[in-house]
């Protein structure tokens, strides 16, 4: 049997996908060929390592086998001395926990920023019910155990209050401030346990990423919950990220990535191109702090009179703007809106207005809001390219030389009205033009890749390409807004404010 076939059968065995005939073929090979048995053994060893490292929850945590045993014995009503000893220990631990850690009121109260979308069991008094998950689709929640813990959680997130001083954070980005009386507060994610030792810290846990923790004040103890289960103690200004096998790797702390209070408005990024530093982003969004923004040429932004104050003027390649923010990844919903005044003389077939993501051939998982020229009618219309090869095009021609408000609402997986994408021109929803679009053929999720080697950060005035080659926009852009949620038609109109498009004045 050749090595490739042996590899195929070995992997199939690990996956439980082999037919009876294939199992017999593999068995015969293994019985007669010691080299194949050696290969099989080494392969299965790596399979087990991968299972142990990556299948969170599968490897038994310390003592978990004992708990399983205990449960079994309880069911069989065969409680013996070992269980009694363990029960005594457990009861003692609970008593000590209550005596030393529990304060009279350990209920968590929750408040949300305006516009937050959440679900879960929360009382009228704002108290979270024990054991009931609370999910944030988008927006921000502030959790409060009076006098002990204050936390600000940014969605998408899911959390469950497991008991006094124990919060399970299944997904989300959270900042925690724990006072002296709350010391010992624990946060449990699917892959780590963080025990506060009197401190301020931030924790990010996402389904497709490895957890990271930042300590800004005091100390915490963090333990990986799988594979090598490394435990570390962190002090102020230290940060760790988890490795795929449960070890901790040091990295630079980044305080700017966490919200520390409820924002008065829903988080978002806003480029007004006004003020002393016209490229400085504003808005209630962690990425705003520390975001580096520059023109491709490295010189000052070229400005012109805008819809409100100044606007970004794009005439040369060097005028386009590049940031260091990777953008909104995956299938997360988002809204992009701005005012544009396209140049009538210079109109390339595709002109990127706001873009990010991976434009490479293998992924083509980009997010590119642009103007596209229809080959059939030569008219320039709104166009949104997302994911691998999907494009949504509008129908109404864009007018050169006039200010127009444009918006894109991407719903990701949440397909409320049967539409994944909505395009708006001057506050009115655009009819999609199927001839000039490549619409999804089914309900597959379409995503943006923001962490590949070829992924480009947020850029304004060009497509998601390095050096702004290709897909440049010629004209003026003002009041760029990027929001991590899908706005309603009314909200999109609200972004226009009291200003109307030139054509309506």
């Amino acid at each position: 049997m050749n090595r490739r076939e042996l590899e195929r059968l070995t992997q199939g065995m690990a996956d439980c996908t082999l037919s009876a005939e294939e199992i017999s073929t593999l068995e015969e090979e293994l019985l007669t060929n010691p080299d194949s048995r050696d290969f099989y053994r080494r392969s299965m060893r790596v399979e087990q390592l991968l299972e142990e490292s990556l299948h969170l929850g599968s490897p038994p945590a310390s003592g978990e086998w004992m708990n399983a045993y205990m449960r079994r014995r309880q069911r069989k009503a065969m409680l013996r001395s070992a269980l009694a000893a363990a029960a005594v220990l457990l009861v003692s631990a609970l008593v000590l926990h209550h005596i030393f850690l529990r304060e009279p009121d350990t209920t968590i109260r929750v408040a949300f920023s305006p516009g937050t979308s959440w679900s879960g069991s929360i009382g009228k008094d704002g108290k979270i019910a024990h054991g009931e998950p609370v999910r944030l689709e988008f927006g921000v929640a502030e959790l409060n155990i009076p006098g002990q813990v204050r936390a600000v959680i940014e969605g998408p997130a899911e959390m469950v209050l497991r008991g006094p001083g124990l919060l399970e954070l299944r997904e989300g980005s959270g900042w925690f401030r724990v006072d002296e009386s709350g010391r010992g507060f624990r946060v449990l994610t699917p892959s780590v346990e963080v025990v506060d030792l009197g401190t301020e810290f931030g924790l990010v846990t996402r389904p497709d990423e490895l957890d990271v923790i930042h300590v800004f004040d005091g100390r915490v103890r963090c333990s990986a919950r799988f594979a090598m289960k490394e435990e570390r103690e962190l002090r102020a200004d230290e940060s760790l990220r988890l490795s795929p096998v449960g070890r901790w790797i040091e990295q630079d702390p980044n305080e700017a990535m966490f919200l520390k209070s409820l924002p008065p408005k829903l988080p978002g990024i806003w480029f007004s191109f006004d003020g002393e530093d016209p490229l400085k982003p504003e808005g209630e969004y962690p990425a705003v702090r520390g975001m580096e923004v520059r023109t491709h040429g490295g010189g000052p932004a070229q400005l012109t009179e805008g819809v409100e104050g100044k606007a970004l003027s794009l005439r040369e390649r060097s005028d386009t703007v590049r940031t260091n923010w990777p953008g909104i990844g995956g299938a997360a919903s988002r809204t992009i809106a701005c005012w544009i005044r396209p140049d009538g003389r210079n109109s390339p077939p595709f002109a990127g207005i706001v873009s990010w993501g991976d434009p490479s051939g293998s992924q083509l998982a980009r997010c590119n809001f642009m103007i596209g020229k229809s080959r059939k009618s030569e008219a320039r219309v709104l166009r949104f390219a997302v994911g691998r090869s999907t494009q949504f095009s509008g129908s109404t021609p864009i007018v050169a030389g006039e200010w127009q408000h444009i918006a894109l609402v991407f719903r990701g997986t949440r397909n409320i009205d049967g539409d994944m994408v909505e395009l708006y021109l001057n506050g009115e929803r655009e009819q999609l033009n199927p001839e000039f679009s490549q619409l999804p053929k089914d309900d597959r999720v379409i995503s943006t890749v923001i962490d590949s080697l070829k992924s480009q950060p947020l850029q304004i005035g060009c497509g998601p390409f390095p050096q702004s080659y290709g897909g440049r926009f010629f004209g003026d852009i003002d009041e760029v807004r990027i929001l991590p949620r899908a706005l309603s038609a009314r909200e999109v109109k609200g972004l226009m404010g009291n200003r109307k498009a030139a054509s309506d004045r």
Partner: protein
Amino acid sequence: MKPQPDEINEAMRDFVRDVTEIQPALRAFIGYLMSGTGEVADVTQEVNLLLWEKRDQFEPGTNFRAWAFTCARYCVLGHLRRMRREGRHIFSPELVDQLADEWQDDAKAHEKELVALEYCLERLPSEDLDLVRTRYGSHGGVQRLANRLGQSAGSMRIRLFRLRAALKRCVEQQIDEEGDFA
């Protein structure tokens, strides 16, 4: 002389600690012998139960690990025989016995293997790491990932096949290189 309660408690604690310590290796051993059955987790728990019930038969001071693996081996063979009687298509007890003979259990090697795996996983492009994590992280995850990226599950599986083979080569190479310098 009868052992005192303190001695009994200490022996029990030692036993619990020993069983806990060998869990990853025990699971790897059972996973190796029972690959393709989908019953690895259940049998691992069964073996833990067996070890606990037979704890009086373990002679303190002798090799606990070897004793536990011998118990595990017979427990696995018992399960496989039952499954074959039920008409399940799995390896014969003869082959499993031979595979068990050739298993090399080395407690010290385990940490080195994990470090080697970490090295290899850290060098994967993020989309490949996503795919590998999806395969081992959740049931049906590859199909969901394929949907999310707009690719066919078939092409994902081909990529995964290559990735797993490459990871295996990488881990072995790392361990060999470390051995050269040890």
